[in-house]
């Protein structure tokens, strides 16, 4: 039986088990959305207030649920607004299917109203992108989109569907599976190579595991923890890998990299085998490549062949899914004696413990520690900047807590919408959005989404009136010339923002009034003893289905330390 394209699209979504769709209307997707009308029992449709937030919401949903995030946006500006989020998903390997409407095929190429070549624009930031040009292929292409997005190393897939394809009748078949001759994701592991990797680790005197985001994508947290414990191997993580092993485990050293722990970076410098799993060796992790893990044989286990020996030359490469490899490794694992090595690491921890020292106002470290203490097992979503780094340093992820953050692209504006997406994936879970006053302002229109779609989260806003991460660079390396990083109003005649006397009065917006206009309660916290009560109130409010915003006033001078200057060796840490 023949059905319209729009009917087939909805059928495909149903067969893929999609339950939540993030959609923004427009001329070229009205058909699809019309087809979804009155199907609340099957699909929950979330209407954001901007497509750039929509795509982060889909990312947050995908990260939390492990399922494919589905976005539907219209042609032209609807599509271009999603580009940043697509790039974000690409860097952090988040499975998305982005359905963009497109003008009818006879109009393509005419510079028609709201026509853009979105497939061309996103070519380098999608795992796969295609315009459907033949109604007969629609079913296969939709299947391809979901299969490619979710298999192998996950990523965003964009499928551009012209309006005439949506309306045209054609086969009603939606295939069970597709065979793509150019796409064969890795589903096995070379046992010989894995044995070599294991032996390399086993023969080490100072072994170290570096766990990346791949552990989370693969759901290998428990396997990794068991493996590390069984072999007594200390673990450092990347930003994306945080939480790969419970942070109260004595084997956990800390985050490594640009703002990593002193002990973690030193352990990388001194280890003789670096057993890395699911990391791309991004420059934020390695620092100066020539000085990265200089004494170590490097084992690199990753599902993506192209990630191996790309930035760092690897001694033992293994292409595999993390869970699969760790299942084998766990079978072979035998205890090693690493006592002396662990002592050495402990000495570094004591030499330069991770500490945020501040002169006045609230200490970000205290806030972070209190947040993880009060909320406990929860989902923590950050934006990008200083608060993000403090979160990676000081949040204590316990039990099945997880951290969702924009690691690769570093997208400001990610945090708040992503937290809504994460909450949408699991309404029974507490979701805490940690954000800065810069990043929050990039997508704060989503307060309306939160209210209208009934998605309550707790917003912890770290306000220092600056774009703090850049300010920090200016403070250290640019002679304290705070060019464009001060977000408040500057009275005439006052050149240096540090010399504004009534800075808090001149700051806009007043976040408490802002959220009040959405019917959300806001609390401003200036005193340390008020932190915990505020958090407890917010936790209870979220439990009762209400969002709350807590604004923490912190000092602009507070910096994220340690810090490795871009391009320098990781041993070259600025510690105070």
């Amino acid at each position, binding site marked *: 039986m023949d059905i319209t394209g729009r009917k087939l699209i909805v059928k495909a979504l149903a067969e893929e088990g999609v339950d939540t769709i993030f959609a923004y209307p427009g001329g070229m997707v009205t058909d699809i959305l019309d087809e979804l009308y009155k199907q609340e029992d099957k699909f929950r449709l979330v209407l954001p207030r901007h497509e750039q937030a929509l795509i982060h919401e889909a990312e947050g949903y995908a990260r939390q649920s492990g399922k494919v995030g589905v976005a539907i946006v219209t042609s032209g500006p609807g599509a271009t607004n999603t580009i940043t989020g697509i790039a974000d998903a690409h860097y952090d390997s988040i499975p998305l299917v982005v359905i963009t409407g497109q003008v009818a095929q006879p109009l393509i190429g005419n510079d028609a109203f709201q026509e853009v070549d979105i*497939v*061309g624009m996103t*070519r*380098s930031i999608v*795992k*796969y992108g*295609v*315009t459907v*040009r033949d109604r007969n292929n629609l079913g296969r292409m939709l299947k391809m989109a979901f299969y*490619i997005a979710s298999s192998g190393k996950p990523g965003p897939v964009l499928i551009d569907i012209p309006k005439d394809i949506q309306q045209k009748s054609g086969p009603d078949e939606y295939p069970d599976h597709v065979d*793509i*001759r*150019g*796409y064969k994701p890795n589903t096995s592991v070379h046992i010989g190579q894995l044995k070599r990797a294991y032996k390399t680790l086993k023969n080490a005197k100072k072994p170290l595991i570096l766990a990346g985001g791949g552990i989370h994508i693969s759901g290998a947290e428990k396997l990794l923890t068991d493996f590390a414990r069984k072999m007594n191997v200390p673990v450092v993580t990347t930003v994306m890998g945080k939480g790969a092993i419970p942070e109260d485990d004595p084997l956990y050293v800390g985050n490594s990299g640009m703002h990593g722990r002193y002990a973690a970076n030193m352990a990388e410098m001194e280890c003789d085998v670096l057993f890395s799993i699911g990391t791309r060796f991004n420059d934020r992790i390695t620092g100066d490549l020539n000085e990265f893990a200089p004494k170590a044989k490097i084992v690199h286990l990753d599902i*993506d*062949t*192209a990630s*191996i*020996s*790309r930035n760092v*030359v690897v001694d033992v490469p293994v292409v595999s899914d993390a869970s699969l490899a760790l299942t084998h490794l766990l079978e072979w694992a035998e205890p090693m004696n690493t006592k002396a090595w662990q002592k050495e690491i402990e000495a570094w921890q004591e030499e330069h413990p991770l500490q945020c020292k501040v002169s006045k106002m609230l200490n970000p470290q205290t806030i972070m520690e209190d947040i993880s203490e009060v909320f406990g097992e929860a989902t923590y979503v950050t934006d990008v900047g200083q608060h993000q780094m403090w979160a990676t340093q000081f949040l204590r992820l316990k039990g099945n807590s997880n951290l969702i953050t924009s690691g690769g692209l570093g997208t400001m504006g990610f945090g708040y919408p992503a937290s809504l997406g994460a909450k949408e994936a699991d309404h029974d879970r507490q979701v805490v959005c940690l954000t800065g006053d810069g990043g929050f302002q990039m997508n704060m229109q989503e307060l309306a989404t939160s209210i209208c779609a009934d998605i309550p989260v707790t917003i912890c806003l770290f306000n220092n009136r600056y774009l703090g991460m850049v300010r920090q660079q200016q403070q250290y390396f640019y002679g304290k010339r705070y060019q464009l990083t001060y977000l408040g109003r500057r009275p005439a005649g006052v050149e240096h923002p540090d010399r504004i006397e009534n800075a808090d009065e001149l700051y806009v917006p007043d976040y408490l009034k802002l959220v009040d206009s959405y019917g959300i309660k806001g609390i401003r916290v200036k005193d340390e003893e008020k932190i915990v009560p505020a958090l407890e109130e917010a936790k209870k409010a979220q439990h009762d289905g209400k969002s709350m915003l807590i604004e923490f006033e912190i000092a602009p001078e507070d910096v994220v330390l340690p810090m490795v200057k871009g391009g320098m060796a990781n041993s070259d840490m600025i510690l105070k």
Partner: protein
Amino acid sequence: MKNRWIALYVENEVGVLAKVSGLFSGKSYNLQSLTVGTTEHDDVSRMTISVTADDVTFEQIKKQLNSMVEVIKVMDLTDVPIHSKEILYAKIHGIDAAGKEEAFRIAQVFKIRVIDIGEDSVLLESALTERRNNELTALLKKTFRRIEIVRGGPVAIESISTSCR
């Protein structure tokens, strides 16, 4: 740094050429030439790609190409015996009888054909290796004042029995 050859089987679809060439520009790989045409299968195209790269970069290029959904197969022809030719047209303008004679002599030596002729011009057609075509171009530039050169880029295929390249 070394010159290398890749043969690439890709889906014969809209946008695939842009995707492959975009990889080279986007990641600053040093692309020397890229030719593309259909194969014995209507839905498959074959590209012949020449790049200058060090070992590490070249490995990365092959992996990146392999990871594209539209790429069916990547073949490294760098150290494989291949036959490779490039089509080249050279139009020589504003020449007298002596000039024509010189053009014919060059054609004879290079074993290429003169395929068209006018009052004061000749058209040469060459299907030689890329390097021979470079030499031909250099000679024509030196010998004549006004020339027009059109080159198609090299195509290559693995040898059957010979090991010459």
